[in-house]
């Protein structure tokens, strides 16, 4: 990385190259302003984020891998079994899935909304080959390669549609594919309404809505993985291998061709890039990774259940990929940490409370400019809440009759600030509606008006949180927040948090 002097914008001329004789303003063939200035733009990053980004750039790739995954390797030794499963193992599984999806969406630019079906397919196929439910008990060294190859073939089949279909059409076909998969596994239990297959008749393939249970632990050459810690390291090693592989693929011919395909399929085709083959390759790669992850997930859960492989998971994985940045390999690990870690913290309501108010306060502090406005907002919100609480307590005693359950210090303080009606159901519903409207109004107003609107909005958010959202932190609330996050990130940074901004050719 050679820094370019500030006083020489425009194309980089190699040292010692003869200066072109004609006038410097003439457009030059073979150079592009935007490409030539990429180093300068990178150097121009300001503040802490710029410093971190530059430091990150200087770390050699093996070091980056170690920095990203090293903390994961230490994690099992400082935590208990339950936490290791929920925070550690699931995060790595999500990261692995997200990396596979990133190849399809981030590298090749194909919007595959059926991706989760491959994950489910892997888990079910492994379950069919090795479980008490099906009666077969294949060793992992036979079953896992079969799963990976057949998932890749399934990916090939689905990928074939991408030859003829453009972006959005492909999205709907793949989404329908996922739906078809879910319907199939929900019903293929050899029951009354099920298919009668040629030659074999009715077969209980998936156990229907009850799921396919008693899946064997992975048994590699007679060595059974039985503990969570075992699966954790197994998955972590797989993640490291896949990331390394992708790093090399990304800088190879194929990787460059994928990026060309993503940026402009037509131009890539004209440059005689084998577009169709590359699309299939991306689909197959993604599917194989998902299928492989499926075998782990099935074995860990010792069962495969249709509800696990539905649109909810699809959104989660998409949120990870987008947070991490489309096309960024390391980003997905961070994305997975955030997307899986935060809702897991939400699971206990007092943790959730700290997280919720913490994020609100931080968002106000970072997003408001100049800095004193954020202080005005925070102080204003506290005073506003106290005033509202006092007025309501004086006029409508039921409005403050409720209490926060299992409250800590923060909860007791909030008892005197947030309105907690004794029967909050209906009013909280309307408040939720009002909160959405207020949040939307915030995006329109400017200047001091924003401060004025923000204060009641924050109070409303706290009210809705305590009276409504906190009830379903692991279910609907989680997905509501993820959905809103997707919309907000797309509006603020369409390339994702760690993704690089792209050139849009007009």
């Amino acid at each position, binding site marked *: 990385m050679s820094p370019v002097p500030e006083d020489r914008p425009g194309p980089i001329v190699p040292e010692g190259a003869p200066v072109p004789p004609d006038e410097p303003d003439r457009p030059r063939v073979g150079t592009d302003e935007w490409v030539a200035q990429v180093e300068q733009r990178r150097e121009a990053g300001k503040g802490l984020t710029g410093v971190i980004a530059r430091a990150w750039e200087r770390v050699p790739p093996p070091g980056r891998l170690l920095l990203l995954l090293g903390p994961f390797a230490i994690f099992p030794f400082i935590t208990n079994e339950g936490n290791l499963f929920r925070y550690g193992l699931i995060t790595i599984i999500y990261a692995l899935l997200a990396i596979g999806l990133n190849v399809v969406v981030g590298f090749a630019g194909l919007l595959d909304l059926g991706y989760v079906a491959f994950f489910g397919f892997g888990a079910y196929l492994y379950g069919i080959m090795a479980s008490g439910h099906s009666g077969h008990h294949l060793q992992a060294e036979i079953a896992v390669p079969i799963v990976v190859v057949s998932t890749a073939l399934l990916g090939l089949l689905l990928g074939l549609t991408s030859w003829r279909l453009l972006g959005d059409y492909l999205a709907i076909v793949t989404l*329908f594919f996922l739906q078809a998969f879910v319907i199939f596994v929900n019903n293929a239990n050899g029951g009354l309404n099920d298919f009668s297959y040629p030659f074999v008749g009715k077969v209980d393939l998936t156990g229907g809505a009850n799921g396919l249970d008693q899946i064997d632990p992975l048994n590699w050459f007679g060595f059974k993985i039985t503990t969570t810690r075992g699966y954790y390291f197994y998955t972590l090693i797989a993640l490291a291998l896949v990331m390394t592989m992708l790093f090399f693929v990304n800088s190879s011919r194929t990787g460059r061709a994928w990026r060309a395909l993503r940026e402009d399929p037509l131009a890539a085709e004209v440059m005689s890039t084998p577009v169709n083959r590359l699309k299939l390759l991306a689909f197959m790669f993604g599917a194989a990774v998902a299928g492989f992850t499926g075998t782990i997930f099935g074995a860990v859960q010792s069962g495969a259940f249709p509800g696990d492989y539905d649109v909810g998971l699809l959104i989660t994985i998409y949120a990870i990929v987008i947070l991490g940045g489309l096309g960024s390999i390391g980003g997905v690990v961070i994305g997975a940490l955030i997307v899986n870690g935060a809702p897991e913290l939400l699971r206990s309501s007092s943790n959730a409370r700290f997280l919720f108010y913490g994020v609100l306060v931080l968002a106000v502090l970072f997003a408001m400019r100049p800095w004193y406005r954020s202080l005005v907002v925070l102080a204003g919100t506290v005073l506003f809440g106290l005033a509202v609480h006092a007025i309501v307590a004086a006029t409508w005693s039921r409005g403050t009759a409720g209490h926060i359950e299992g409250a800590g210090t923060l909860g007791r303080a909030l008892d005197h600030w947030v309105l907690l009606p004794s029967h909050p159901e209906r009013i909280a519903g309307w408040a939720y509606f009002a909160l959405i409207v207020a949040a939307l109004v915030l995006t329109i107003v400017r200047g001091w008006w924003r401060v004025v609107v923000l204060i009641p909005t924050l109070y409303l958010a706290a009210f809705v949180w305590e009276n409504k959202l906190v009830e379903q932190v692991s279910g609907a609330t989680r997905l509501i927040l993820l959905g809103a996050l997707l919309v907000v990130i797309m509006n603020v940074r369409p390339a994702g948090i760690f993704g690089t901004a792209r050139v849009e050719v007009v």
Partner: protein
Amino acid sequence: MRSLAPLNWSLFFGELVSGLTLGSIYALIALGYTMVYGILKLLNFAHGDVYMIGAFVAFFVLQWLGGPLSPAVTGWLAIAIMFAVAMLACGALGVGIERFAYRPLRAAPRIAPLISALGVSIFLQNSALLLWGPQFRDYGTFDLIGVHSYSIGKNFFISNIQILTISVSIGLMIVLALVIARTRSGKAMRAVSFDREAAEMMGIDVDRVISFTFFVGSALAAAGGVMFGIVFGQIFSLMGFTAGLKGFTAAVVGGIGSIPGAMLGGFLIGLTEAFATGYLPGGSVYANLYVFALLITIFLVRPTGLLGSPVIRKV
């Protein structure tokens, strides 16, 4: 598994009528997809959830009017009010979604508004789940207007509700066709869909046309949602996903961007689903799989749909 019995006309006509009823609902959803796609080239994933919210708004209007057992006005008037309120509310919702989730992304890469739409969809769906719970709500159509079945000949039966659904949907489609063909706004819509930049240069307020399109499309989806509630009685917060998928399939099968295509596609999907349920192996649970097979087949034969015009890509 029922065997194929070509002489069972009662089953045949039964499936035909229920296919047309379903199809008219799908067609209404498909119209919204196809109009938005025609103008913005955007797949509006949230459309199915707008349909669901339309069904819920109508349900709460019915409760507000006194419920199906003792409505404040006569049954048919109650239904008319339900349609009107749901359509207006969802029209406004559609305009809001466009304003806040899609408009800021006009200049972004193609994938950004799609993901934003996915976010809106999951947001609406789970908001409904949070506010109204996962349980089924019953419109109580039987109590509200009574269900009568009319017969033509020995085997052909059709109920007043099915007649209502099919005729309201065809009526709305005729109105839409007239709006697009005859009014100034319709003309502007056609112009924007043909060439947005040129339309803008001719002095057409493109943002307003897009808002109008979202209003009309979302209102039609809401009408579809109310019809679903009236025909099947039960509505639930997750109903939007599958219906949206079918609606989009209908739009694509008919040729996305083509309004007659959306109507044709809607009826085709409805009929496929009904006949698959009646005649094909495993049809009662796997009807959607057959719809998927139809979608794939049509894509392989005609990637731009039945009535779609071939896509000319500009570089």
